[in-house]
């Protein structure tokens, strides 16, 4: 019987999702490798379509179209790669705090509370804006990677499918993706958007902390600020003790000092 590398690769991919729990006797459940299994299966499907398209293509243009389709599929596949600014969601506004009274003047007894709520909402809007910019830049990078991958593939079409060929194709795709991502990540727009995302997140957290502290005080609960004050006093006492110790220690060291300096050799050149 002739070896069938394609079947081997598919069987291997299938194992990603199903084999691990059974192999160890662990309780059934989703494999930790499931995301990579899914990725591999979808990569395989795209590669299979490419090989089918290229095999049936009678003209160079058709082969190029098959390569372009492969690149487009990879672009879709990697569009939502796990990045910190993609994790927290909210780009659709679903996690945003209520935007009540955003533009109402803050008056009366609840003035401070309203202002804080407005600042929280404003910070959240800034987070969303920065997230959208980062995701746009990321999507552009993946599109650029797909174009680069297509160009490479068209320049030297892959041979018949085998596990090794597929893995090499996958490696080529990762190279293209990292190159494009690196260019984007070094760019000024990306660095600015990332800084705005982080800074807005810091602002949002600070206002939220202040809000929680306000509630804690109403219930006479200890707050982080109070604990910080105590910690800082303790740190100051420690520094004071250390400073006094430093005054004493050199004298003691001089009194008992019998240290020897290590011999230094002349380095060989």
């Amino acid at each position: 019987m002739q070896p069938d590398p394609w079947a081997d690769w598919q069987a291997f991919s299938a194992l990603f999702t199903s084999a691990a729990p059974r192999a160890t006797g662990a309780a059934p459940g989703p494999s930790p490798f499931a995301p990579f299994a899914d990725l591999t299966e979808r990569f395989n499907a795209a590669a299979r379509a490419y090989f089918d398209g290229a095999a049936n293509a009678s003209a160079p243009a058709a082969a190029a179209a098959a390569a372009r389709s492969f690149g487009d599929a990879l672009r879709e596949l990697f569009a939502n790669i796990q990045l910190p600014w993609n994790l927290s969601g909210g780009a659709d506004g679903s996690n945003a705090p209520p935007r009540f009274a955003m533009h109402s003047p803050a008056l009366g007894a609840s003035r401070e509370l309203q202002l804080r709520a407005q600042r929280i909402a404003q910070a959240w809007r800034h987070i969303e804006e920065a997230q959208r910019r980062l995701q746009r830049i990321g999507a552009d990078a993946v599109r650029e990677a797909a174009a680069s991958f297509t160009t490479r593939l068209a320049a030297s079409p892959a041979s018949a499918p085998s596990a090794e060929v597929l893995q090499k194709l996958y490696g080529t795709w990762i190279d293209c993706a990292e190159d494009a991502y690196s260019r984007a990540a070094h760019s000024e727009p990306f660095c600015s958007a990332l800084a705005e995302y982080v800074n807005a997140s810091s602002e949002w957290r600070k206002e939220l902390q202040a809000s929680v502290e306000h509630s804690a005080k109403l219930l006479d609960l200890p707050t982080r600020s109070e604990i910080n004050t105590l910690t800082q006093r303790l740190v100051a006492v420690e520094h004071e003790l250390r400073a006094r110790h430093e005054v004493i220690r050199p004298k003691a060291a001089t009194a008992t000092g019998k240290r020897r300096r290590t011999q230094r050799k002349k380095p060989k050149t």
Partner: protein
Amino acid sequence: MTPGSSFGALAALAAATPGAAGCSEREVVWQSGKVKLFRYRPIARPAASAPLLIVYALVNRPYMMDLQEDRSLIRGLLNQGLDVYLIDWGYPDGADRFTTLADYIDDQLAGCVEWILRAHHLDDLNMLGVCQGGVLSLCFSALHPQRIKNLITMVTPVDFHSPADLLSKWARKIDVAALVGDGNVSGDVLNQLFLSLMPFRLTQQKYVDLLAGNPDRAAAENFMRVEQWIFDSPDQAGAAFREFVTWFYQENRLAQNRLEISGRNVDLRALRVPILNLIGKRDHLVPPAASLALRELVGSTDYTALEFDLGHIGMYISARAQHEVPASIAKWLAAR
């Protein structure tokens, strides 16, 4: 590649137990708060050299230096007959949020150095600073040059504004004081940041390659140990983190001779001891240019830079590093 062998690979991975952190015998010889100073048990004929203190980074756990028997920089150094000490900074918690770089350098690192010098009745020792620990070592050595016999820096950034330094570019416009507030910085957040430097390789390819590579049990366990180390990231003491990012990444004070610790200028020109600078040519966290800048900044006339065709982590745990790095260090020390 056959389905059967892959099945075995998955089983090996799932069964792999990373095991306890570190593999070489050691004992705690000094402790201050969460900081522990370890001394490793000799396993070879002692070399005629002063003790070697390894100063690891604050942002990861130091057991990467002693991951497993065949992937251990420390074991390699012990095999060369060196007397090895290691600082473990511990896991900072909320009570450590006001710990500053001065506390780390002038109190905790200085405390470790003092203990070793007293124990050995010496005036100076050899220091090996790794990554961020190399920066701490440079600061300490510049402030206390009489305590250092030879200084070795490994994958250590010095010029934080080199063109390939992505972390630095990302950090420039971030309001670090607002980010830190009065708290600590989560190790998980830093992990996400590090993964974001090369997301396609670090969150996708390495897992696919692992499974496609059909690892045996030993390879699977090695992978899982590294995986454990990568995600075992301590929270960072807020004050020290704020200082480090602001002074080094944003303002590049060390390279510009504008850094002060405890009110004293950290002048690298004061460093006249022999210096060995170990660099990973494929380091994506600390670009070679960031490390190579050291030569122009120090006062030492005995400066050696060794470049290895390795990445950041590969400098500690790759098979190639095991053969090359400890032997290079021992040979360099033996000549001084």
